[in-house]
């Protein structure tokens, strides 16, 4: 039985879009007789490095799911790469899922290149990277709970699942489907800015404060 390990690169652990997206794939795979497991990278890196190595060495496919931080990977994911660079890996398959706060998914391209570069230098088998925009919009909800907005996204993810089952690389068509805009930029900007103002009012804060200058 093939083993799949989801490495959640979000420091938010349970409540993250990274986890939600990765678990969609895991749920589908476990129905097809894959054995699945999840680790929350930040807490594990600080406390339980050996367990990470153990789980990785037992796996046939690694799925690294991460939030985009300052155009690249969060610091602890870079630390994970640094730690792994000193270890021998078998020739596992690996894929990455990046999600970001801006509505456009292209912001994630560079981060996926870093993941691919890591995979290739460590002699892992890179099967592809997915880029998803407007991550905070999910706010803990699964892509199945968003109605018509996520039609294409789900279609793309199902194609990814199929490729994994067939032991193939992720198709370009699937990458394009998942990276399509879920809502238009103008609407995202409007809704986002409005909600920031609303929360600021609720929290009774000066959102434009300049404590350092």
């Amino acid at each position, binding site marked *: 039985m093939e083993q799949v390990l989801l490495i959640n690169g*979000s*420091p*938010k652990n349970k409540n*993250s879009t990274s986890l939600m997206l990765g678990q969609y794939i895991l749920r589908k795979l476990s129905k097809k007789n894959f054995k699945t497991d999840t680790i929350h990278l*930040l807490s594990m890196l600080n406390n339980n490095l050996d367990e990470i190595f153990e789980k990785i060495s037992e796996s046939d496919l690694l799925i690294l799911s991460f*939030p985009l*931080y*300052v*155009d*690249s*990977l*969060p*610091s*602890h994911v*870079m*630390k994970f*790469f*640094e730690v792994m*660079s000193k270890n021998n890996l078998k020739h596992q398959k690996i894929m990455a899922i990046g999600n970001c706060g*801006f*509505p*456009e998914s292209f*912001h994630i391209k*560079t*981060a996926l*290149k*870093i993941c691919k*570069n*890591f995979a*290739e*230098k460590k002699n892992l088998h890179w099967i592809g990277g997915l880029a998803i925009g407007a991550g905070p919009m999910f706010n803990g909800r699964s892509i199945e709970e968003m109605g018509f907005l996520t039609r294409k996204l789900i279609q793309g993810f199902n194609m990814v699942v199929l490729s994994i089952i067939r032991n193939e690389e992720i198709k370009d068509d699937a990458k394009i489907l998942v990276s399509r805009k879920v809502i238009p*930029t103008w609407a*995202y*900007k409007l809704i*986002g*800015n409005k909600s*920031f103002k609303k*929360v*600021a009012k609720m*929290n009774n*804060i*000066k*959102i*434009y*404060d*300049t*404590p*350092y*200058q």
Partner: protein
Amino acid sequence: MKALLLNSSSHDDLNMELIHDITKKILEEKNFQVESVMIEDKEIKECRGCFNCWLKTPGECIHDDEGRIITKTIINSDVVIMLTPVIYGGYSSKMKLVLDRIIPVLLPFFKKIKGEIHHKKRYKKYPKVIVVGMMNGEDQESSEIFCELIKRNALNWYNSFTGDTIVYQKEAKIKKEINELFKYLEVK
């Protein structure tokens, strides 16, 4: 003029120490008041993605540690130099620790810049940032990704970022390459 020199390599990285010393000297010759920070020596916790720095305590991170102090120093510097080993085309984890902690100097609000969404500024003035990515040998792939990353950072930080990778080599050559990067400071 104040310059902050951030170094994310470790104390035993002698190549980076040389690059650091060369950079420091160039800055001093240009009459900068230089503060050097070895990130390794600082206690900085990882960003935990809570957005408190935008929506609860605007402009300040929830972690009360040296990350706050560095963020404050950054926003009050004229120039920030980041010396980082290039890790698979990205910043080293220690430099990234600092970068992930500086988002409170932006506002949460979205703004369209050249057709892309970015964040509005919180402060009037932002430092010029020069990134020096150090590599111990030629690696075109990593170098290209790193330069692309700096370009993306520049777009998100109001064109304040510039930089390049340098491969560790003879002192004179390093000096020349860093001087080349410093030309950026002369552009108004």
